[in-house]
């Protein structure tokens, strides 16, 4: 019934669009960028350190068409997806196994609780020591950092499966495999997807950090290098592009999530009786 909005006059329509739809949020971003543009033009703040948005856009355009930025992104996205995929491929099955089997859980839980909160930045020197400063190190760090949220979410998901559901399946005569496939995997899937979504954001962050620490390519390197060589608009251009990439990655995930997990969305957004 959105189409038949009750607002007949222009003002009503504008306020509807501003406050009731997602467009309002986009306007906030545009307003901020406009303020930035003018602030910089009229020297409200230092125009060299905070260049005009239009200059940044120009720089972004230049580094994109020159192929510099795409080349760095190719490398960054490769590292990120390699690390992320490894963490999913190992994390999901491990989480399922640890969640399903009490003995395995008891054996691994203290270890997980020790590794998980260790700041990834503290792990980096060890990995550099062992793997050097190349791709292996970066991919490993990304995999490490995104592994834990996946693992923990999957374990929680399995532990959260309703007892009544399990008992129902057992009464109907489900074998352990059927129980696992038809109940546990399904019931835990919202948690699994949540873990994967949290981790993909982390994997982008960690890739960029790893690239800033060592090496001479990747978007992380690009941003830091632009700052050191005083290509300030290029530096901002790199950061802006990261914001957009981060946003897109998350958006894609949210869309995927809501199409696969329609049942869960419906279930959890149901009005409490």
């Amino acid at each position, binding site marked *: 019934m959105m189409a038949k909005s009750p607002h007949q006059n222009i003002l009503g329509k504008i306020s509807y669009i501003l406050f009731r739809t997602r467009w309002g949020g986009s306007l906030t971003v545009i307003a901020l960028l406009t303020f930035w543009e003018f602030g910089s033009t009229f020297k409200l703040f230092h125009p060299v350190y905070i260049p005009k948005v239009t200059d940044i856009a120009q720089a972004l355009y230049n580094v994109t068409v020159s192929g510099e930025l795409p080349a760095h992104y190719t490398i960054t996205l490769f590292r990120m997806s390699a690390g992320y995929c490894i963490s999913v491929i190992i994390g999901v099955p491990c989480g399922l196994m640890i969640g399903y089997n009490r003995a395995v859980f008891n054996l691994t839980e203290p270890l997980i609780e020790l590794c998980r909160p260790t700041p990834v930045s503290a792990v980096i020197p060890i990995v550099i020591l062992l793997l050097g400063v190349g791709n292996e190190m970066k991919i490993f760090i990304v995999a490490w950092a995104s592994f834990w949220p996946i693992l923990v979410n999957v374990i929680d998901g399995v532990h959260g499966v*309703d007892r*009544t*559901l399990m*008992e*129902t*399946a*057992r*009464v*109907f*005569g*489900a*074998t352990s495999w*059927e129980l696992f496939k*038809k*109940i546990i995997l*399904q*019931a835990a*899937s919202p948690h699994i997807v949540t873990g994967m979504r949290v981790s993909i954001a982390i994997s982008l962050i960690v890739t960029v950090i790893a690239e800033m620490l060592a090496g001479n390519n990747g978007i992380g390197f690009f941003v830091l290098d632009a700052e050191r060589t005083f290509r300030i608009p290029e530096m901002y251009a790199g950061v802006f592009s990261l914001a957009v990439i981060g946003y897109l990655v998350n958006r894609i995930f949210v869309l995927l999530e809501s199409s696969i997990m329609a*049942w*869960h969305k*419906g*279930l959890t957004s*149901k009005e409490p009786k």
Partner: protein
Amino acid sequence: MNLLSVKNISKEFISPNQHTFAIEKIGFEVKEREFISVIGPSGCGKTTLLMMISGLMPPTSGEIILKGSKVDTPPPGLILLFQDYSRSLLPWRKVIKNVCFGLELKRQRRWLIGQDYKKQAEKYLEAVGLLKFKNHYPWQLSGGMQQRVAIARALACEPTLMLMDEPFGSLDAQTRAELEDFLLRIWERFHQTIIFVTHDIEEGVYLSDRVIVLAKSPSRIVKEFQNDLPRPRNQIETRSDPRFLEIRNEIHRIITQKEKDWGKENDGKEPPSKYLG
């Protein structure tokens, strides 16, 4: 021939900070094709009893024999209809797929192939009057409708022994009467053995061949009634039959008496829960 013998089972729940003696030495026999109702107050261990019969929970002592073999895992041919029916439906499956759930499993698969289980599921969904809702998710249905989906799912497997845990507890009087009669029709047609747990004395008497009355803390059998009311039963005639009223009143008396005794033993304090029905 006896289908099921429950031999002197007891159940204690022991955890570090508490100890509940839920059931004390309950024993009874169930003949094939019998319709038994179990009546008892809330918290007296009815659910626990059914969980043990269905092999989901081992008794602390005693044993349960079904078709000559001891029950320790859920036996084939037995279906338990959970009291908590809304949590027993699979929220990620539409209604029709929920009804198919039991049929898809390896255990049932030998007698159905391919499209057949969909037909079977639709047949029973139709019987509980929910065919129109087959493409809804369970959480889009009302409580009573969810309960009927759970019933259809159980019936679709055509169990020989069906345990029902207060299945009509949350329904309005009219739907309840309809489903009682539906259950009786099903039972007259397929002649499963049914153990029907309820709070409601009249419902228990109306449906069954035999009524087992349980008392509380720890639960034990206070009395068994052979119920020889004529079949087929009828909501109006059966419920006004003098024999029906006689049994109902007798059960009522026993239960109220028990409650008074409870009061005496406990300095006239209110019993922890009220008998319903």
